């Protein structure tokens, strides 16, 4: 019978992604409540050594699929290998991070195994040993509680929702023999920017600029983001104007962020934008139009010129941080 919780952890350039640690810790919480084991699954090339780190967060068992063919993320081979691992180890539930790659991989595996997958969940509970998930719908305007049918039950976790806690346990590490199976899509080239900056979706602080930035000079936002160890985001208008790359776009046709602090600078607050920030802890808006829609969703509102306010905020925080 299926038993235990499995978490798929993404190993990046410098260790595990923060969202993966969050998912592992949430998996541990569920496994403990069930009185069962937590298995972490790591796919990639030359990841075996680093994988041991997950014991620190409570993984009782780590399965690594370590193979040169898994060096770059490709949905098909990754899904074939992951499905095989899940079929062999038979966990009753599987969590993963709701990253771009995680969401693509999850969909493939759920389709292969013919099981339910709840994406971008913000919370979980257990009922009779089964997972019940909470997830936002309609751009965060509606919250759903859902049952997930099939075994394993699958769910992806939205970044910045779960606490990371250390909880070291003895661990057993095993290697899974990789068979990538039939691969119909061939990878020709990959262009991944290795950046030392935090990923927008995982950042605790997101400083976003819109059309009110009036050009591609986002230096005042970058300065504040750097000071806080956060990331810079943008509205669609700023992206469409060519001031920022699409990967910075927040909203319905961009990314969803859930930082501790979201600072919207010169952004009017269209629904398509706020769809991307509904699970933020605190929202602050700086806009010189007192009637801007963004003030209806912001917790704190500053009606003034962003070019004056943002540097002043930076100065204030720098003074505190010393």
């Amino acid at each position, binding site marked *: 019978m299926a038993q235990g919780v499995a978490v798929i952890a*993404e190993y990046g350039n410098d260790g595990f992604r923060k969202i993966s640690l969050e998912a592992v810790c949430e998996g541990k919480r569920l496994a403990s409540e069930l009185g069962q084991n937590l298995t972490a699954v790591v796919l990639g090339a030359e990841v075996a050594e680093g994988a041991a780190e997950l014991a620190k967060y409570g993984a009782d068992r780590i399965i690594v699929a370590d193979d040169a063919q898994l060096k770059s*993320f*490709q949905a098909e081979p990754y899904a074939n290998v992951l499905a095989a691992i899940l079929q062999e180890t038979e966990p009753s539930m599987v969590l993963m991070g709701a990253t*771009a*790659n995680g*969401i*693509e991989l999850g*969909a493939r595996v*759920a*389709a292969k195994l013919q*099981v*339910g*997958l*709840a*994406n971008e969940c913000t919370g979980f509970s257990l009922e009779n040993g089964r997972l*019940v998930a909470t997830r*936002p719908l*309609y751009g965060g305007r*509606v*919250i*759903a*509680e*859902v049952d*997930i*049918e099939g075994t394993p039950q699958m769910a992806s976790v939205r970044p910045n929702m779960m606490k990371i806690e250390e909880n070291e346990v003895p661990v057993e590490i095993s290697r899974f023999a990789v068979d990538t199976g039939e691969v*119909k*899509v*061939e*990878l*020709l*080239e*990959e262009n*991944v*920017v290795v*950046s030392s900056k935090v*990923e927008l979706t995982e950042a605790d602080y997101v400083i976003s600029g819109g059309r009110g930035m009036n050009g591609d000079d986002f230096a005042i936002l970058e300065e504040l983001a750097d000071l*806080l160890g956060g990331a810079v985001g943008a509205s669609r208008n700023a992206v469409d104007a060519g001031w920022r790359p*699409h990967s910075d776009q927040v909203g*319905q046709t*961009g990314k969803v962020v859930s930082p*501790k602090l979201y600072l919207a600078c010169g952004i009017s607050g269209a*629904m*398509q934008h706020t*769809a991307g920030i509904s699970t933020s*802890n*605190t929202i*602050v808006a700086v806009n010189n139009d007192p009637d801007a829609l963004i*003030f209806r*969703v*912001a*917790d*704190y*509102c*500053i009606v003034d010129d962003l070019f004056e*306010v943002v540097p*002043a*905020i930076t*100065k*204030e925080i720098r003074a*505190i941080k010393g």
Partner: protein
Amino acid sequence: MNIVVLMKQVPDTESELAINDDATGIDSEDVKMAINPYDEFAIEEALLIKEKDGGGTVTLVSVGPDTVPEAIRVAYAMGVDHAVHVNDEIDEGVYGGADAFTSAKIIVAALKDIDYDLIIAGNRAVDGDNYQVPAHVAEMLGLPLVSAVVHQEISGDAITCKKLIEGGTATVRTSLPAIITAQKGLNEPRYPAFRAIMKAKKKDFDELELDDLGIDEKSVGAAGAFIKIRKLELAPARTGGRIIEGASPAEKAAALVKLLREERQVI
């Protein structure tokens, strides 16, 4: 080249939403509906391929309630050749609890009588953000799938796509027939001209019921779904709207930072 576009009609982002009485669905009565924005990219790309190709047809397939024909009119006005609407409305005015799996089952049944070289879907539907229908369709049909495509080029029976991955892009190639999903950046959807809108009103489309496809009602909708909604509620309103007073930008900034530290403890 014959292309199928998968289109879902979703509540317009700006329309007010209300939850139905048993808290399992959205009350659709007063909701204005629209084409899922990612599916607009899909339609546009299909039209661009057809225009470049100088031949073939673009067929739209949509599974949804009684309101879908409005979206079909828009797609026709953009230039889509033909549309198939599978009506899955089970209870009047309430979405039937379909999920990605049940929707894909119906789509696959509808595709049986359609000839295609390429299927284009959206990266996600912005109502439920499931990100899963194309994967289920690909799995059921045994077709290659390329998700989050921002550029494509077809040559012979191969398609080369640039797609978004975490932190960057990848270029991949596969053979047709295949499914790709449209991500923002693929194109800018056209606005239909007035004349095209008028003409689209008179154009026929296929209206199918689940019965016509030999699908048992009990195998789709909430009964067949893997993701079953227990309860929906409107998200709580944010505490909202506190205006930070101050005589100068510097004073306002200082007041804000104090609140962020003391009241919110986020700094």
